[in-house]
């Protein structure tokens, strides 16, 4: 996809989002004008600002047809093919990390994430990979669970119990 096509599609996408927001406020029955005796309605701010977003999107689309923005004249690829792989894989790896965090918990999924990124994408040595795979969960445990006292997602009960078994050592011995 060229930058030119991408800008037009983005213009329509932002227009749709804006109209969707306006519809959302309207269909929830929020008052968008003055409510007698109470002042501006709860829907006033989001509704009229969304209308502004819609108008800005329309302006971008019009400017695209007039060829006024540099992007509307650019036939370069939107994301260069040689970097598309790296960017997509990076974004997907976060997605997989988030999914896994709900299933096998933060620590195991972080280990898999680090292994994938350092060893597979980065092609680093096994030593470096293991340092990241083991170092990341330990660092996260000390910073978030011990210092910041946050209970990070532990996934399904079986994984949570496994974690609690390890976590018990902290309370028993420290």
């Amino acid at each position, binding site marked *: 996809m060229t930058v030119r096509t991408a800008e037009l599609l983005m213009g329509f996408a932002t227009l749709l989002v804006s109209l969707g927001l306006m519809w959302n406020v309207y269909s929830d029955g929020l008052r968008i004008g003055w409510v007698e005796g109470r*002042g501006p309605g709860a829907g006033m701010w989001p509704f009229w600002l969304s209308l502004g977003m819609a108008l*800005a999107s329309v302006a*971008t689309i019009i400017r695209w047809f007039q060829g006024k923005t540099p992007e509307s004249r650019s036939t370069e690829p939107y994301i260069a093919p040689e970097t598309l792989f790296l*960017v997509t894989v990076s*974004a997907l790896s976060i997605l997989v990390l988030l999914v896994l965090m709900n299933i096998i918990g933060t620590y195991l999924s972080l280990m898999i994430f680090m292994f994938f990124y350092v060893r597979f994408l980065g092609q680093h040595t096994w030593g470096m990979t293991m340092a*990241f795979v083991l170092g990341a969960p330990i660092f996260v445990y000390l910073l978030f669970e011990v210092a*910041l006292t946050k209970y990070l997602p532990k996934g399904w009960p079986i994984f949570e119990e496994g974690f609690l078994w390890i976590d018990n050592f902290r309370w028993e011995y420290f």
Partner: protein
Amino acid sequence: METILVSLGGGLLQAFEPLNLFMIFAGCLAGLFVGCMPGLGSVNGVAILLPVTFLVPPTAAIIFLAALYYGAMYGGAISSITLGIPGASTAVATVFDGRPMAQSGKADKALMAAAIASFIGGTVSIVLFTLFAPPLAAFALKFGPQEEFALMLLAFATFIGLGGDDIPKTIFSILLGLVMAAIGFDIISGQPRMIFFDMVEFQRGIGFLVLAIGIYGIGEMLWTLESTKGKVQMHSVNITWARFKENLREIKDYINSTWIGSVLGFFVGTLPAAGATPASLMSYGLSKTFSKDPESFGKGNVAGVAAPEAANNAASTGSMLPMITLGIPGSPTTAILLGGMIIWGLRPGPLLFTESPDFVWGLIGSMYVANVATVLLNLALIPVFIRVLAMPFTLLTPIIFMLCVLGVFATTDRMFDTWIMLILGVGGYLLRKLNYPVAPAVLAIVLGPLAERSLRQSLISSQGDVTTFVTRPISLTCVILAVLLISYPLIQRMMRRRAEAQT
């Protein structure tokens, strides 16, 4: 004046408390690190590390983040000079002369000039800050909701008038941030708003940090991965004690441009849309104009390194002025700091000076100390940071991604927010590739709740009469300035057309 000096003394003493002093050094180091990594700047560092600062009391936390802010301004120069890639957008102008200097084997001289100019820029701007902040805050105490709203209008107008980006795209970005801030329960009527797909998670709204980390953590890393492809070319730096002393004697070559950068940077930095990047570019341009040898700029003139570096440091302090005194952030980084202050339970704005003087003066005192700490750390650790720069992106990226995900989770305790962060990060990246500015959206989501409240309060108190914004002198001035700023690009275009027609 005397009260300022007494308060400043108290602030300095506070900065020397062990925890705060430690935070200053830790912040400077973290800042130097994020500043020198290509693609990461102060805003990324502050966004990603804000959740971690909940470990310490608010004063220590803001001291850490402010020190990080300075450190990043110093650090940006390191990669601009040795790699020829700006470490942050604020160091773009440093590349113009820093790179040619490194190519001709004078990288050490450029690095030193950058550090010294940054130090002078930082110091001058902190003195200006100390002088201007208390009277401005005292003046701002007179502000009612009308003035607050007009001031925010003015802040957003600066993005349209001076941002230099595509205007419809800038407006879209501002409005998107403002609308996103409205998701969740309405602060005045208590009604739920924009609960998409009936998901109860939306009732608590979308926190500014979710957007900021999404855009400046995830989106920015994707952007950097794409633009550098993980490969960089570095120049060697030759540092010896003898060269250090020799370089120190050459300060006179660039002291004038440093002064220009320092003063200009501070004032440009106070404008919400301007900030450190335009300040450094403007100061580069001005020193070139005033130079006796403008031809040598761009070919390795040391003044071309000093001017932007002094300006970006001065601008970072400048952008704190409206944040502390008016509650309007002067840059995306201070927008995130402002959001942090709200999380810490402080109310940014003129009352801060009277309600939390320890916090404000502790911060100001720490700025002086942080500036000295950073210049020393910077000069001492240049060889270390050059090593750090050789670190491959495939090692840095997973750490940043991890901190983004867990940082967002730690602030809100909800996995839902991490999903939103990923969506906003990827969305922000795609928008940014089409030249949609993202900084206005971040500023808007922070100011959104305040702006909506002040607008509705003003309208309620005036019984719906919108002229309330133009019948009060301060608010009228802001509205007029805002209108002028918004119409500035139009006026500019008309003048250009007329000039073309005449020729």
